[in-house]
């Protein structure tokens, strides 16, 4: 239906729109990170498009691909009733250069969402008014949704009791094993007993 949005984007930005596709009425445009803000401004201000509501913003890590971190923005127009999904890619293997222009000046509602993407995925937003962690605590090191963050690394704020203090074993009790939990997070770290 709203092939219109993609057509307008291609017409206006040409080579900055790297890739588009439409599945089941969902239009997606992969855009150049350098034009992120200009495209956002255009989508918001153009009367025929009028995207007045940012639905969601998130980061997706593809560790085997360069640039590595994909930032996905979902937009909706309440007046025109159409949607578009914008994607862009930033950052090399070490997440150097993972920077993007902040869109808070266009959609104030993106303030906390950009903080979340910064907190979880480590993308820095240029021009954000208050780029702090929002979910994790300030002492937290690293960005947990990057695939390079170790699956079993925790950063406790209070030191755990030792078994001496507790006077009892603090391992998980039978029938729970030490590696109880989601098995895919631990693959290759703790070989299962039957493997050895």
């Amino acid at each position, binding site marked *: 239906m709203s092939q219109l949005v993609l057509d307008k984007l291609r017409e206006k930005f040409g080579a900055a729109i790297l890739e588009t596709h439409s599945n089941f009425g969902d239009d997606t445009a992969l855009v150049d990170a350098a034009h992120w803000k200009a495209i956002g401004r255009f989508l918001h201000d153009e009367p025929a498009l009028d995207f007045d509501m940012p639905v969601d913003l998130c980061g997706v890590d593809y560790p085997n691909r360069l640039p590595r971190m994909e930032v996905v923005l979902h937009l909706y127009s309440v007046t025109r009733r159409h949607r578009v999904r914008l994607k862009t890619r930033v950052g090399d293997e070490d997440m150097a250069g993972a920077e993007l222009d902040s869109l808070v000046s266009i959609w104030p509602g993106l303030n906390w969402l950009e903080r979340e993407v910064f907190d979880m995925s480590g993308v820095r937003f240029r021009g954000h008014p208050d780029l702090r962690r929002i979910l994790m605590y300030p002492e937290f090191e690293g960005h947990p949704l990057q695939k390079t963050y170790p699956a079993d690394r925790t950063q406790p704020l209070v030191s*755990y009791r030792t078994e001496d203090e507790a006077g009892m074993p603090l391992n*998980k*009790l039978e029938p729970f094993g030490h590696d109880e939990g989601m098995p895919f997070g*631990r693959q290759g770290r703790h070989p299962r007993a039957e493997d050895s």
Partner: protein
Amino acid sequence: MGDMSNANRSLTLEGSEQGFATTKVDALLGWARKYSLFAYPFVTACCGMEYMALASPRFDVARFGAEAPRFSPRQSDLLWVVGTISQRQGPVLKRIYEQMMEPKWVFAFGTCASSGGFYDNYTTVPGIDKIIPVDVYIPGCPPRPEAVIDGLLLLQDKIARNERRPGVVKPRIDPTDRVKDLVKLRRSALDPAELAPRLRQDLEGQGQK
């Protein structure tokens, strides 16, 4: 007050009868404490719904003298940790526990509070016993109110016996059968081995009708 010290030697005083009973101070204190538990609900997650079910008339935790919530740790002696504790909440939980008066007890309500549950990740404390001591673990996601009442009875049993080792409400596979250092709930005066045939007889009797 039959179970103050020995169930076989209980005596009921009626009407204008007068008399006295002898007991040990510890037993008397334990008996008094176990029926006047003032709860501090530290409710962080979905298990809270089950806590509400427990506290409402259908399951009626008031029967066990543990219905009064106190939203100040200084006025409570039973800490209900109901739900997932994130690393960020760890210091808060520890501080609440430290503010409580002695003697104090702690419930780990639900699988997340007991072991972190399926949140095996960067954000969740893998069981509150890593931070504060726990008296009774109540597994379940969430636990049925019956399981929680089981846990409450286990705690009362522990208090009466002045016992501080942790206990676990029985799941289908009972960990206490494999680990020696856990307190077992005394469910009935009857030996389970004696009870089973009688239950079976009762069931068969019903079937014949």
